[in-house]
């Protein structure tokens, strides 16, 4: 077994395609390890860290293939890789056909009325592409992450000065003029316009609004850093200004983690002046304080959607609801079947905001927990590879997605972790999310359902009972059927909540009941 390496000069492919090639290469018989990536210093470093000591001279625009296998196979393996890397002949072999545009400016020559650039290129190039799009008069959705903050400030400053919208960087979802951008659920058109600095939070809001019978005019993302002091909420302010002028939007919802104080003042002042009703939810912030400033405030994602829909219909603002009594009874009944030593809650999330909101639910009830993306009052992770006590993981966070697809696209890594936690004798309840919609896995449960059955079977054999609680973020209009997902999960013995906060509250109730039993 030896390390082999091959450089393809000036061949660019996106990371998802390269991960697919990596996976095919790793699966070849005789190949013990493989990596296919653009030859950036960071990627080369990562290959070395993973035990492949590649020594090559290559530019970041070159494609680097490295694998460990017997020398005898090297040639045939390289032939296979070359075949996989061949571009699809998009011109149908007709040399006379027009060249596929390679840059934004060329794209605009081919489609002169384009009004939005959807950018998901690697982070070190993403801001440059966004700046080009803006300078050519286009609005931008920037899905890419790892964009330097100074560049984010530059592009947003330019956009604000030219009355253009920049959603992102690290903006995972948006619905503009009814069209899904990035990860997005299919919801009915309507009168509620949303602006969010939180991706899955925005998906949860749009889905809930849809379930309640109302619809969405625009769902705009800003990227998670927008309301930091350094960026100043420029994207959120631009979005509010545009929604204020949009005749289809009759009510505006703002969603963010708590902003920097100066930014909050600025955003809220604009919201107050926009002449449309505004519902605000700052995850984990004191809703009463917002209410005292005259805003309709949400206590959690579900409540925020409920408030928005009630306000739109001219109804009284509802109080935050607790969990459904029937489901609460089911959760508590499960506690009765648990063995001694089952004590811990394990949350394994694909959606970052879902992990965040679940932590808030634990903290609100005085439960100590750990997370890789901790909110205030939560410990940092004890170990990346095994949970400790109550442990809530955001599997979409960078540390789990290096070189791998996001768990919303490919849930296999998340599923593996979920099963690992279910197998821990100390685990009482496992909390997880299933995110549907465009961009998400086409069959989010295909792999998980048999694994769940297996895990429940094994814990039964050991005299334990695991309470699985899930929340499905999606609608019946999504490409994946929400109804089918919910009934499949129920059939597998999973308690399916109506919302993320309800799922977390059910889990908290079970843990508190367990503590009560044991004390």
């Amino acid at each position, binding site marked *: 077994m030896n390390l082999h390496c091959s450089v393809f000069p000036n061949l660019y492919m996106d990371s998802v395609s390269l991960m697919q090639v990596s996976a095919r290469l790793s699966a070849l018989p005789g190949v013990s390890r493989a990596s296919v990536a653009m030859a950036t210093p960071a990627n080369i470093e990562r290959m070395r860290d993973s035990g492949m000591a590649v020594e090559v001279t290559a*530019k970041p625009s070159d494609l680097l293939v490295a694998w460990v296998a017997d020398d005898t196979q090297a040639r045939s393996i390289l032939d296979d890789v070359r075949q996989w890397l061949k571009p699809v002949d998009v011109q149908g072999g007709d040399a006379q056909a027009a060249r596929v545009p390679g840059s934004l*400016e060329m*794209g605009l020559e081919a489609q002169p009325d*384009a009004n939005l650039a959807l950018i998901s290129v690697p982070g070190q190039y993403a801001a*440059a592409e966004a700046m080009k799009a803006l*300078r050519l008069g286009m609005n931008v959705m920037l899905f890419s992450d790892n964009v330097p903050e100074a560049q984010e400030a530059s592009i947003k400053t330019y956009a604000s000065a030219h009355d253009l919208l920049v959603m992102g960087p690290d903006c995972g979802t948006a619905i503009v003029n009814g069209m899904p951008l990035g990860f997005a659920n299919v919801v009915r058109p309507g009168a509620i316009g949303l602006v969010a600095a939180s991706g899955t939070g925005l998906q949860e809001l749009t889905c809930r609004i849809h379930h309640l019978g109302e619809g969405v005019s625009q769902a705009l993302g800003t990227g998670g850093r927008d309301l930091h002091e350094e960026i100043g909420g420029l994207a959120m302010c631009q979005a509010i200004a545009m929604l204020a002028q949009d005749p289809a939007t009759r009510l505006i919802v703002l969603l963010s983690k708590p902003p920097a104080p100066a930014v909050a003042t600025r955003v809220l002042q604009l919201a107050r002046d926009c002449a449309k009703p505004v519902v605000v939810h700052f995850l984990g912030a004191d809703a009463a304080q917002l209410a005292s400033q005259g805003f309709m405030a949400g206590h959690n994602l579900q409540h925020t959607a409920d408030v928005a829909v009630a306000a739109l219909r001219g109804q009284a603002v509802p109080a935050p609801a607790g969990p459904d009594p029937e489901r609460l009874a089911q959760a508590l009944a499960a506690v009765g079947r648990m063995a001694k030593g089952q004590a811990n809650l394990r949350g394994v999330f694909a959606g970052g905001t879902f992990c965040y909101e679940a932590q808030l639910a634990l903290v609100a009830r005085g439960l100590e927990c750990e997370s890789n993306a901790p909110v205030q009052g939560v410990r940092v992770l004890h170990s990346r590879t095994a949970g400790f006590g109550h442990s809530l993981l955001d599997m979409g966070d960078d540390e789990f997605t290096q070189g791998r697809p996001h768990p919303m696209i490919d849930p296999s890594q998340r599923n593996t972790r979920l099963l690992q936690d279910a197998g821990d004798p100390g685990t009482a309840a496992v909390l997880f999310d299933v995110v549907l919609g465009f961009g998400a896995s086409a069959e989010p449960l295909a792999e998980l359902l048999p694994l769940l059955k297996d895990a429940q079977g094994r814990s039964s054999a050991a005299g334990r009972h695991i309470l699985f609680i899930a929340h499905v973020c999606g609608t019946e209009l999504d490409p994946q059927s929400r109804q089918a997902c919910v009934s499949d999960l129920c059939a597998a013995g999973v308690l399916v909540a109506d919302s993320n906060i309800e799922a977390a509250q059910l889990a908290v109730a079970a843990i508190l009941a367990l503590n009560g039993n044991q004390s």
Partner: protein
Amino acid sequence: MNPLFQQPLQVIGLGLAGFSDNLRAAGGKVLHLNWKPAAHGDSGANWLLANLVNDARIEAANRQALQQFLDAQPVLVDAVPASEAIPAMAGGERRILHAGPPIAWADMCGPMQGAIAGAILFEGWASNIDAASAMAQRGDVALEPCHHHAAVGPMAGIISPSMPLWVVENRAHGNRAFSNFNEGLGKVLRFGANGDEVLARLRWMRDALAPTLRQALRSAGEIELKPMMAQALHMGDEVHNRNAAATGLFFKRVAAHLARQTQGVSALEFIAANDHFFLNLSMAACKSMLDAAAGVRHSSMVTVMARNGVNFGVRLSGTGDRWFQAPANPVDGLFFPGYDVNDAAPDLGDSAITETAGLGGFAMAASPAIVKFVGGTPADATRHSRDMQHITLAQHTAFTLPALNFAGSGAGIDARRVVDRGILPVINTGIAHRLAGVGQIGAGITTAPLTCFVDGLAALAGQLEQ
């Protein structure tokens, strides 16, 4: 107010194709780019480039530079010794001009050293090749690029004071450009040959050919070069690597006037025997047109592309006399029998001035015969010309391409477009043997190195910040 919400959404996607597929599935209009990072993946250069896109100062400067280039009217007015045409060659100083960006004697490739040694002998400054080489080595002869003196020369591009030059004047702006005379193929100075046969031919060209042509020109009157080049494009030339038609047109224009001169017949025989005779006129015409566009502050238009046998050099209108250099790219070509790529000198010569002006590789659609050098097809030729239209500011009104339904050849290379679109200027070129004096050993196609344009943009960006 931003009208996005009142318009149908039209998306350009770059990066993950799945997002564009989803939009299409949802009934949206989307164009997914065949994107890759610009500038060899240098993220700093990508950011710098992005901030030059659609810059109002650059756009205005480019409009001006392009218009001056398109307005230029190159006219052949005279044939005179270099010492009369170029002030720096007049004072009796020992000065020799060469192709490409500046380069020291010690760094020059074989053919260029051979040609310079030959020119020293030709001028009578030394009595043999060894002495001539030693003289150049000592720095006793000033060696400067042709481009520093409004001149151009193919291959080694050697111009010494007593050599005859074509004088081309741009009637629209009054600037003049110069080129040496084409010696033909085989053992010639421009490929580094410097034997007796070569020097004897140069002397005949100086003493007989040039004065005869000068007399014939006086008789024929000035010759408008732009229409002649445009006509040649319609006759299968791209007026860089194929000049058979243009040479024929020139021959027709001067034949009767030459025939009346004392040495007219030998001049006619010389022109008729060399299909590349017109190349140097094409080059001088291009140089005069591009000099008209030079020095427009903030312009990203390319005004010079030239090779010295080691480096490729580029100048932009907005950055004036600065050269942006990088090692020349390899040539993809066919070799004459008995030679291969190991025998080849790196890309050489000022003749890429034709591509800079939208001819040569840019006009390959006009000259399908040329693509045979790289085993290509006529479809490849039209593809090259179409590609080049993507990196230019406009299309020529004077130079049109029948195979592209008489669309204009690309005019005015924009360094920003080269970098942004990752499409390199295509150059048709002859291949010189790496040893002096062997001559041409093949021909083919090469490209201008990306680094030159990236560096040029960095300089332009620095200028904009001031």
